């Protein structure tokens, strides 16, 4: 009976997490359009609801009501499967991130950790699911039976394979510092110094490499070659319309959110808000609330960087992209591992 309750609770938690994530993603899209508008000296969408707050729902309605076109000579099954893979792979990593410390429910002695699934190899799970996500784009490009789509899909596969290496290597420094692959424990290790012992202080190079590789992994400006509209129309999703296009759109923004969460968890101390434990008791409800808000603020900061870059930087050329990934980012990632390992070797008792 207990297991049944457990499973029901997990399902409820996953549902709540997915809904919250989808809401945040919807408003990221709105924020992107507004911020880009301000960067470019215009207003952006501000008509639907107060200041445009209902714009995401209007967009969603439009996506649902649009005509769903399937190309005549597409490979139908894979054409339908691709957006599903992309969205599912993007959403699946959501469950392992700890978004707050263990909290005690007020007036009871029940403590619950603010994480949905506790996983011994949480970090590897995230990397694994992310690496499966590339199929969504590659298969979409192939099944559309369109040269632009195919080129977009191929570019995207090549880009993701190349930058996955740098991404994985940049995380090794953090794993060395934390000595574990468990995301909750990695955050716990950053709780010293009143929650200010963030791993970015010891591994800044790894952080920079991670951030760059993560932007490339999510196909965002300046690495958005798979959908370079001047060369490839709309890249891998040229032939997709209506809700299927919306799923790709959604997957891209969920991926942005996921890599932002990973950056926060690994480098910026996760839910640790510095010096808040001087005022609030550790493990109390209020402490948990402040920590969770701190986590969200850091994630939103990363999302803002994404939007900011999009409004600032031009796009790479494809050969520049490959050169940068293999000849600059990969050696830098190796260097960051070397520096971190040397630090740990020189001060073995400190970590």
């Amino acid at each position, binding site marked *: 009976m207990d*297991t049944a309750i457990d499973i029901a609770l997990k399902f409820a938690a996953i549902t709540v997490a997915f809904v919250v994530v989808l809401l945040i993603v919807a408003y990221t899209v709105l924020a992107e359009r507004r911020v880009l508008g301000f960067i470019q000296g215009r207003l952006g969408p501000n008509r639907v609801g107060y200041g445009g707050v209902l714009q995401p729902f209007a967009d969603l309605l439009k996506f649902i009501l649009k005509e769903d076109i399937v190309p005549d000579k597409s*490979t139908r099954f*894979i054409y339908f499967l691709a957006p599903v893979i992309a969205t599912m792979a993007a959403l699946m990593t959501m469950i392992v991130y700890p978004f707050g410390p263990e909290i005690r429910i007020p007036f009871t002695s029940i403590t619950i950790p603010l994480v949905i699934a506790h*996983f*011994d*190899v949480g970090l*590897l*799970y995230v*990397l*694994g*699911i992310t*690496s*499966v996500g*590339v*199929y969504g784009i*590659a*298969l979409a*490009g*192939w099944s559309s039976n369109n040269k632009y789509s*195919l080129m977009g*899909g*191929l570019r995207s*596969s*090549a880009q*993701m*394979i190349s930058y*996955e290496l740098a991404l994985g290597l940049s995380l090794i420094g953090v794993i060395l510092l934390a000595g*574990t*692959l468990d995301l909750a424990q990695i955050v716990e290790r950053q709780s010293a110094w009143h929650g200010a012992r963030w791993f970015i202080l010891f591994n800044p190079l790894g952080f920079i490499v991670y951030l760059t590789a993560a932007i490339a992994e999510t196909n965002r400006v300046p690495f958005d070659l798979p959908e370079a509209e001047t060369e490839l129309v709309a890249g891998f999703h040229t032939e997709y319309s209506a809700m299927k296009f919306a799923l790709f759109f959604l997957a891209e923004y969920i991926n942005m959110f996921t890599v932002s969460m990973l950056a926060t968890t690994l480098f910026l101390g996760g839910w640790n808000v510095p010096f808040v434990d001087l005022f609030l008791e550790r493990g109390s409800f209020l402490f948990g609330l402040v920590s969770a808000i701190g986590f969200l603020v850091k994630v939103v900061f990363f999302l803002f960087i994404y939007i900011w870059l999009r409004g600032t930087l031009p796009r790479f050329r494809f050969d520049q992209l490959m050169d940068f990934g293999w000849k600059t980012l990969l050696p830098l990632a190796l260097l960051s591992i070397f520096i971190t390992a040397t630090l740990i070797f020189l001060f073995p008792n400190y970590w």
Partner: protein
Amino acid sequence: MLALLFILFAGLAIGCALAVVAQRNPLYSAISLIGVFISLACLYVMLAAPFIAAVQVIVYAGAIMVLVVFVIMLLNVEQVEHGRTRLKFLVPTAVVLAAILIAEVAFILVSVQEFRVTATTNATDIGLTHSIGSQLFTRYLLPFEITSILLLMAIVGAMTLARRGGLLSQMARVIPGAQQFPLSMIDPKAASDDLTLVETDSTEEAARLLGVDHRDRDDS
């Protein structure tokens, strides 16, 4: 509950494995193979080996199969009808190999009955990251290093095979009259200390000497 999950994932694995060989379209086969790997990863999780499960997904489903799908997409393999002549030799061979495999499986199943080990339910740390790491870098260090050297050799071999051919890359353009190439660049066998310059008058001539396609790649 566990038995149900096992049946689900094992069934998925077997079904996908059958689909790999039954499909005509190579891309469908590749996708089925990904299904096999992911089902196996789920089985590893059920066997309390999350590290191996994660590595299974990252390495096989995430890296190797991406390359396979990539190659299939790049070559855009058409559905080729195989001639009966080729199958003539393959069918008896396949039957013999299948018989050997079935015999092996039967042997293992019989042996399992003889050397039965009672299943232990107490928690061990086998399969967790910590134990795998410490064993891999102490007791099994030599095999581990040999494996990495093997992989390095494969990489170097692939690079050598890929770079064989002309000295100039496929993307090289030949501009007549604008450049004078030393003979060693055109003919590697003639490489010596005295650099003979070859002057070309037309694109076609230069291209013929260099062995590259002279047409602009964009309009081909």
